[in-house]
């Protein structure tokens, strides 16, 4: 498929972590009984006026600062006009010409291992707007039911440039954005509840040609669906063009059951929304002092942490990126290093990314639910580093900690007698025994069969119950066989 280039831009609606709505004092709590959290403003009863929620604005400022964007000194709310029963006013209050956040970028890690690469996705803008209500189309005697609890919920719509070139890049961006909005505490990231939803604008073209006509896939609420929907859409568009048809600009929906996208409506052009400044709302002015105060309250950001993990702890770009995939993982790693020491940052990274991740995965758990605490893991790594136990035994101790067989690695090592034998005399005795009992292997090795050496190492480790220091075993064996 080399002769086609895929072009993807993503719009994300992140629900802001406020307790009340963006223009009214109604609650935003999820799961309330229908229409019990829809007040007069949300219902668009005559004579009501919107009053902007300060926290929603502050969330937008935080986001703008976190992505290195310009936070607009002055931004304007506009009416986006369209008719739908879950939009009682007949317009959505959004921002159009002057959004609150302009520009910025997010650098993401795409792929893993040797094929991993970094990519910077530029953002066009992010603007504040209100969510619509919910329409239920189940049968109410041939009618639709409307729940306006969600109407007026604050959203930050985050729009990228058409910078992504594959579904992998799109997913990497969406994941990084998802982690970032939670990291800076502006969105709970709950995708099942619709707190974080992505729309993907997808087109294909021959490299070097102008952009093709795009189709917008709406409301993707999982990373898997985002990938499947884009992959299907790309193939569909290529087939259409190859078969001589033209792509029509359209809005499409993804059906997770069939894995296909289908046309929802031919996109009305932006002009049809007849945006104009909302006379109910004055310009939003954000002073430099407010921006500076928010800047001072920002936590260390993923990109800064990534940089520090490399410069201060000597980790690779890939490790640093993996360990900053979420605040929970980063915190766990840093707490582990706090116990094991900065000199052991690399083994700490490996344990968190490989052993712990695999074990969590096996039980379907998140880092925050890990039965082994960062302190326990740090204590375990200390014992590997100081040669009390080998890496192999450490895996046993880790499993024991996981199962709650002891409070600390030290306790388990002690109780189960796992301390590594480092006394040269003791190991030498075992080596001698093994050499005497395995004359055949010794002869093979002397005849030039390298494999026989490994068999002997195995025998020694077996009779030492895995507790002999592997390095010492190797050295002693070599010395004895050479002698």
């Amino acid at each position, binding site marked *: 498929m080399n002769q086609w280039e895929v072009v993807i831009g993503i719009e994300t609606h992140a629900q802001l972590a406020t307790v*009340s709505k963006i223009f009214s004092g109604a609650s935003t709590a999820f799961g309330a009984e229908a229409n019990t959290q829809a007040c007069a403003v949300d219902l668009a009863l005559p004579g009501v006026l919107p009053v902007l929620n300060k926290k929603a604005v502050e969330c937008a400022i935080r986001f703008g600062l976190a992505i290195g964007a310009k936070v607009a000194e002055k931004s304007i709310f506009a009416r986006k006009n369209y008719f*739908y*029963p879950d939009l009682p006013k007949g317009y959505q209050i959004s921002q159009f010409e002057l959004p609150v956040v302009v520009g910025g970028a997010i650098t993401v890690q795409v792929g893993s291992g040797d094929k991993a690469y970094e990519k910077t996705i530029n953002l066009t803008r992010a603007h504040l707007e209100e969510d619509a209500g919910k329409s239920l189309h189940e049968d109410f005697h041939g009618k639709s039911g409307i729940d306006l609890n969600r109407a007026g919920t604050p959203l930050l719509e985050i729009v990228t440039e058409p910078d992504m070139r594959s579904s992998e890049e799109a997913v990497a961006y969406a994941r990084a954005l998802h982690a970032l909005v939670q990291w800076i505490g502006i969105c709970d990231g709950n995708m099942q509840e619709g707190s974080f939803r992505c729309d993907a604008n997808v087109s294909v073209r021959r490299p070097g040609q102008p952009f093709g006509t795009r189709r917008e896939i709406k409301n993707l609420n999982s990373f898997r669906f985002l990938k499947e929907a884009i992959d299907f859409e790309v193939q569909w568009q290529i087939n259409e063009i190859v078969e001589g048809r033209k792509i029509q600009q359209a809005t499409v929906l993804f059906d997770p059951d069939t894995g296909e996208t289908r046309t929802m409506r031919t996109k009305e052009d932006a002009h049809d929304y007849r945006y104009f400044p909302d006379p109910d709302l004055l*310009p939003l002015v954000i002073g430099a002092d407010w921006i500076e105060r928010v800047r001072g309250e920002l936590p260390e950001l993923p990109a800064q942490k990534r940089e520090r993990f490399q410069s201060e702890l000597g980790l690779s770009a890939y490790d640093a990126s993996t360990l900053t995939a979420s605040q929970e993982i980063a915190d766990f790693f840093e707490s582990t290093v706090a116990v094991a020491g900065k000199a052991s940052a690399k083994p700490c990274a490996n344990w968190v990314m490989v052993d712990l991740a695999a074990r969590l995965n096996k039980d379907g758990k998140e880092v925050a639910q890990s039965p082994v605490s960062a302190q326990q893991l740090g204590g375990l790594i200390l014992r590997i580093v100081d040669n009390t136990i080998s890496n192999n035994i450490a895996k046993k101790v880790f499993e024991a900690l996981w199962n709650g067989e002891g409070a600390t690695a030290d306790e388990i090592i002690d109780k189960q007698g796992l301390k590594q034998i480092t006394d040269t005399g003791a190991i030498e005795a075992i080596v001698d025994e093994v050499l005497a009992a395995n004359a055949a292997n010794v002869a093979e090795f002397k005849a030039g069969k390298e494999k026989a050496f490994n068999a002997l190492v195995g025998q020694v480790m077996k009779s030492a119950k895995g507790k002999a220091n592997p390095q010492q075993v190797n050295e002693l064996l070599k010395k004895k066989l050479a002698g």
Partner: protein
Amino acid sequence: MSLTLDQVQRIAHLARIEVSEAEALTTQGHLNGIFQLIEQMQAVDTTGVEPMAHAQDLSQRLRDDAVSETDRRAAYQALAPEIEAGLFLVPKVIE
């Protein structure tokens, strides 16, 4: 600039307003009158003048993020033509 009859019909459709052909003609006249007024205003040199987003030169007042509204569903739904299970019922809409 002036609007064609087709454009008037299209605007009416977007605003979900039903206009007869006679009404469309009258409306076309009214709207074109407004356009003439706009043309006069556009003759004024506004170089270097920042466009106003609001007639008042003030900035938006903000409110603290706190829940101040209680559940008044029963009162609000007493106004609705049809309700069921706490939902407002409307003619079926599905795309």
